[in-house]
């Protein structure tokens, strides 16, 4: 929506006022996943592979997930820090404006500094693509783009769910981090390396499997059964994940409006 971009422009201007700290924070955002990736690299040097996946294959999922996470973090930062908005009573201000709550919350914060992580993810992804021994066709690249998009929607959905929790309680929000940060760290690796119950949870409840497993199989020519198109379009399920999250959000807003705070 055009309004959203106007919000972004405003926030960009605001954050540019603090140029030095912006730069430092962006660098910091880049270093964090870098150390994790360094660890990954070192472990692969020692072990050679993880349950049948080679280094570049895992690097691919790593890049995809971190790109998705950083993009989602940029956009959904308003939801991530929603506890501040609600706690300070500023949500009422949003309710007095003739626009939907979702676009306003999204427009309330935008962390441009997360670009650091995005840059890192992109570099890893490009490195992985270069290092992989496969033929890159247009459908594969499209699938890759879909994977990132799907990841963005899933993470944004989780952020929205975590924010909805704020309508009921401010405490225990850290538990939501299990799904955002934790989800990110888990999804870095192809899903099937985990125990069965974990794999199942992250396929059916929070569909990371639609980002880092099924389409991955297609991209890496490891599909075994079923038509290729099914693997390619799996990320769409991830995109659909956001719909129940938005419904929960609306329920939360309704609750807020009937109980006051």
């Amino acid at each position, binding site marked *: 929506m055009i309004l959203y971009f106007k919000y972004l422009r405003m926030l960009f201007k605001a954050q540019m006022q603090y140029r*030095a*700290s912006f730069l430092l924070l962006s*660098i910091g955002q880049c*270093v964090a996943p870098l150390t994790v990736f360094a660890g990954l690299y*070192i472990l692969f040097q020692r072990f*050679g592979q993880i349950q049948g996946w080679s280094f570049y294959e895992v690097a691919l999922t790593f890049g995809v997930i971190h790109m998705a996470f950083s993009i989602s973090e940029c956009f959904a930062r308003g939801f991530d820090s929603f506890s501040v908005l609600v706690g300070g009573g500023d949500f009422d201000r949003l309710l007095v404006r003739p626009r939907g709550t979702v676009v306003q919350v999204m427009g309330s914060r935008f962390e441009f500094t997360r670009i650091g992580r995005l840059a890192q993810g992109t570099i890893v992804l490009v490195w992985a693509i270069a290092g992989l021994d496969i033929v890159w066709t247009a459908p594969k690249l499209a699938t890759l783009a879909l994977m990132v998009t799907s990841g963005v929607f899933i993470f944004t959905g989780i952020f929205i769910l975590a924010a909805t929790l704020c309508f009921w309680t401010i405490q225990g*929000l850290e538990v939501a981090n299990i799904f955002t940060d*934790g989800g990110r760290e888990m999804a870095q690796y192809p899903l099937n390396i985990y125990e069965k119950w*974990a794999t199942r949870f992250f396929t059916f409840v929070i569909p990371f499997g639609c980002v880092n497993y099924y389409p991955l199989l297609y991209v890496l020519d490891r599909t075994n059964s079923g038509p290729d198109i099914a693997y390619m379009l799996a990320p769409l399920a991830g995109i659909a994940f956001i719909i129940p999250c938005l419904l929960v959000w609306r329920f939360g807003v309704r609750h807020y409006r009937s109980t006051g705070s």
Partner: protein
Amino acid sequence: MRTYRSVFKLRLLLGMQYRAAALAGVATQFFWGFMLIMIYRAFYLHASGQPPMSLEELASYIWLQQAFLALVALWFRDNELFTLITTGNIAYELCRPADLYGFWYAKLLGMRLSAAILRCIPILLVAAFLPAPYRIQLPPDASAFVLFAAALLLGLLLVVAISMFLYISVFVTMSPTGSMIVFGLIGEFLAGLTIPVPYMPSWLQQIVYALPFRWTADFPFRVYSGNIPHDEALIGLAVQVVWLLSLTLLGRWLLGRTMRKVVVQGG
């Protein structure tokens, strides 16, 4: 000395009140530990050659890391202190630079300890009853445990001493997050908190052993599981003491100098 003890006690008791946050933290730590062990297990499944730590030792390492994260992680937020520095309200805390070091040290110590006490017991309890290989192992003998406790305590003192340099750097840069993140992350990596040191390539291990960071996490945790034998452990304790003394003295001196510059400039 008495002021140090009282500020330490105050911060400790204050920290213990944050029960709900601690509970949420425990859940998070638990998830991380479990996930990490799952990942390593997947690595080990088709491992070629003998890994430097057995999966059981690794599980113990990871659970100790999660349980005592507050005691070993370099990146630990004390926003109160940061805002104090950046807003210039530090003027209120100025007595003499020497006292300031001790004051902050005691405060940070209390903070970390209170956070750790609330979380370590639930995590360790649950970790003890998990199915193998996720379970935390008991130390091979009693003396290993004693050595571990000593190493952990010295490690805590050491990590606070290192973190003091972070706060001093904030004085210079006036921006808490920038310098902290980079320094904290690299420090944690070098402490063995991203991956245990034995997994690193030998050239990297040499660098790590030369730096003080590993003595906060890597050393105590491996003493626990017996990965580091007793005689090495005893020498290690001595090395910890040496690092602790030198970093404390250096930090004290540096803080004094920085404070004097701040006072002179009037900002």
